[in-house]
């Protein structure tokens, strides 16, 4: 690859690549994202590659291993263009059929098509699948088109044209103004206006400035940053370059967690490719911008997603937050002005610069603009990544896109925003995805993780889960976060074990308020949210646990009571043999068996299964 020295050379390269690809009649896009790789998509890709080279079809059919398509539930998935065909749940055995039937003869293989769970009909085209239909995919749609390890793919898809446009004739002030006008807000959780952040950093004194991409995503059930970085690292790099131009930085860092090996690898490849082409380095495309990116790998601490801890980690110090009374835009990495944005925020920047701020600000609600990628997980049918316009009601996401709960039971609550967010009950499902409205309801958009909980979930148990996570991930520097979360967990544990007392809920609320107000960093300040929202919306469940010593959802093991229904018992004695505690006594084949209180443990659940079988 030769170095690109001017804007014209970039355009020439793009034209040349498009001409080269004219002979290709069909493109097969197989998802190589983490979700599909977990469903063995690698085998499908290898088999397809073999088959294509065996049949000498490589000239006309291009196999493109892309990033995440979003519909992880149906993985491994494949899209065949130009027919817009969608195949799902693929195995390596299907490859032969796909090549001989679909790719050569153009026939559609019915058994590989997606079945709509509502109508039961097979759907051929991607555009007709409700999961995709209801979304507004701006960032994720690019994931389908490019091979993340190929800069050519990205350039063919129009990549780096936003950068060229900016460097050609937009001053840094105008870029900041455009981002400001677009009302883009930080996608990492806080929702701070990106334009204001950039403007403050631009005005901060000092020659040396930094831009950082925060890809230390650690929320349980959230993986949108991972998929964007894995699927389209050049988009993020381009966004960072525009940001660097705007604030006057010439060094950038991508802080990505080491647990995302594919994201680390793809970013590394992308940075190297960009360097080779002269898109990173001195005088990029012949302009005044000199900028380079380093990759910093995180060691797996959730707290390192917090901006000051992240910077400490890059500096080589212990990843602990520090007081943020002076903002990072003035005193950040190495005590220099620093702009830190989330992966998704950076990914939005090239689109805004290319299509204009007004294009962006027409989408969304009054104070939250653009689109947001959400990770739908939990008890929902269509698990996957969803990109919707801001302001889409939660109901639409859960039912129209998500397809309702897996069990068919009612969805009881949805935890939005990960451990820092809160649980919203079904009565709040008409709320739109909007930074301010969700915060008002006690939750937050956060990074965009949506964990769906159905009737089988116990809300006290959910609070316990998030507290356990946070207690484990707290850095331990400040007292309220370290001890406060631990004490909250202690109380919640007591409640789930049936040792709860009546005044404890008030104590829990008081403590949660103290922790959220006095903690040092964002982790501690938002840590009580899961407890506070479950207390606010599901207080009756807590009270049932305390007063009646009963878990309505039957989740809290210590509160499950077993009994033998004398009308149904046939005296078969299966339960007697199954109980490791010998808690069931009686004579086999006689209709009188009795159960004694015993140590309730995990094995006892098996006995329960036996009892149920008897019924």
């Amino acid at each position, binding site marked *: 690859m030769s170095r690109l020295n001017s804007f014209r050379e970039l355009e020439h390269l793009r034209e040349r690549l498009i001409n080269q690809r004219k002979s290709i009649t069909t493109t097969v896009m197989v998802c190589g994202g983490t979700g599909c790789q977990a469903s063995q998509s690698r085998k499908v890709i290898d088999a397809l590659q073999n088959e294509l080279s065996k049949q000498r079809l490589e000239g006309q059919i291009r196999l493109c291993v892309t990033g995440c398509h979003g519909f992880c539930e149906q993985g491994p998935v494949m899209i065949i263009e130009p027919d817009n065909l969608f195949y799902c749940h693929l195995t390596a055995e299907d490859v032969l059929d796909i090549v001989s039937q679909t790719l050569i003869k153009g026939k559609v293989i019915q058994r590989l098509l997606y079945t709509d769970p509502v109508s039961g009909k097979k759907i051929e085209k991607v555009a007709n699948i409700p999961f995709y239909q209801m979304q507004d995919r701006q960032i994720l749609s690019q994931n389908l088109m490019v091979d993340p390890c190929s800069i050519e793919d990205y350039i063919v898809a129009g990549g780096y044209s936003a950068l060229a446009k900016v460097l050609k004739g937009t001053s840094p002030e105008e870029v900041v103004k455009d981002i400001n006008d677009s009302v883009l807000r930080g996608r990492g959780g806080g929702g701070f206006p990106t334009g204001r952040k950039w403007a403050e950093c631009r005005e901060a004194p000092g020659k040396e400035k930094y831009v950082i991409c925060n890809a230390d995503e650690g929320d349980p059930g959230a993986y949108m940053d991972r998929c964007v970085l894995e699927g389209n690292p050049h988009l993020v790099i381009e966004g960072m370059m525009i940001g660097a131009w705007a604030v006057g930085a010439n060094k950038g860092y991508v802080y990505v967690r080491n647990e995302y090996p594919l994201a680390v690898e793809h970013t590394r490849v992308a940075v190297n490719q960009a360097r080779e082409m002269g898109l990173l380095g001195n005088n990029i495309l012949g302009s005044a911008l000199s900028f380079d990116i380093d990759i910093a790998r995180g060691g797996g*601490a959730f*707290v390192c997603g917090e901006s000051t801890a992240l910077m400490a980690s890059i500096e080589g110090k*212990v990843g602990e937050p*520090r*007081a943020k*009374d*002076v903002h990072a835009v003035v005193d950040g990495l190495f005590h220099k002005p620093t702009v830190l944005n989330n992966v998704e925020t950076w990914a939005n920047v090239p689109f805004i610069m290319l299509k204009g701020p007004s294009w962006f600000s027409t989408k969304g609600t009054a104070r939250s603009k653009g689109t947001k990628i959400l990770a739908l997980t939990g008890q929902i049918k269509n698990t996957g990544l969803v990109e919707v316009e801001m302001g889409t009601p939660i109901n639409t996401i859960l039912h129209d896109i998500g397809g309702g709960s897996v069990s068919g039971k009612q969805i009881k609550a949805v935890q939005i925003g990960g451990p820092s967010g809160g649980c919203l009950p079904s009565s709040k499902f008409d709320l739109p995805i909007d930074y301010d409205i969700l915060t008002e309801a006690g939750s937050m958009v956060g990074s965009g993780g949506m964990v769906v909980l159905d009737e089988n979930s116990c809300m006290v148990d959910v609070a316990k889960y998030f507290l356990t996570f946070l*207690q*484990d*991930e*707290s*850095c*331990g*520097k*400040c*007292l*309220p976060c*370290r*001890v*406060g979360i*631990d*004490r909250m967990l*202690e109380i919640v544990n007591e409640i789930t074990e049936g040792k709860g007392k009546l005044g404890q809920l008030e*104590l829990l609320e*008081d*403590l949660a308020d*103290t922790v959220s*107000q*006095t*903690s*040092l960093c964002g982790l501690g300040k938002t840590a009580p949210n899961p407890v506070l929202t479950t207390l606010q919306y599901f207080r009756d469940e807590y009270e049932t646990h305390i007063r009646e010593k009963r878990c309505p959802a039957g989740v809290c093991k210590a509160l499950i009571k077993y009994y033998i229904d004398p009308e149904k018992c046939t005296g078969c004695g299966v339960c007697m043999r199954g109980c490791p505690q010998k808690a069931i006594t009686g004579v086999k084949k006689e209709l009188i068996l009795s159960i004694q209180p015993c140590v309730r443990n995990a094995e006892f659940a098996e006995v329960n299964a036996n009892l149920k079988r008897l019924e």
Partner: protein
Amino acid sequence: MQQYVNVSIDGAIVKAQKGASVLDTAIEYGICIPHLCHVPNLSDIGACRLCVVEHVVNGRSRITASCTLNVEEGMTILANTEKIRRLRRNLAELLVAQAPNSRAIQDIAMRCGVTEVRYPFRNEDCVLCGRCVRVCSDVWRANAIGFVGRGKDRHVEFPFSIRPDFCKHCENCRQLCPMTITPCPGPMTSGNERLCGGCESQRMTNDDYPGSCVWCKLGENFGCGRYSGNQTR
């Protein structure tokens, strides 16, 4: 030349040295904001959070630790509101429940108005205030001890648990440790921990003004800013 800024702390307009922290300024003027991890002449990390104050910016109050907050011209600080007293009391309660076996901690709890402890006592040996770690690194530049582990497992330790050659045996870490001051009736055994409340005399006489300094004996032993003249350097 020394530069000064005007700061309003609890309504009193005071002249503060530019670059000083709000806590230092308050202590200098005799407005006592309870604190534990802060030691004069050591860097502040804001670990104990006892020194929380309300920082009023454009009519909106933000709660933050005063030891890491630097003074600025025209700043408004409220160190003794109902809200702050409640938060401080809750923090002191957490602290004393964690480590009741220290007169210093018991006294802080008393001064912050803790009258009952709603959590089971734990009787731990360390409250992770980090005084020892910072005196080792800031004053002696030895770095012989540091924090190890995360969250609940965080503790103070020598590198690889062995006293290193560069430890200067200055014993400053021990001198500054709040846990070395035993409660008056002697150490509490496990299971017999309580909120001692023995130092009623140290308690603020008037609840309306708990921020005023009573020159408590505790402060002398404990490196309170008012006694910084006697501080070992």
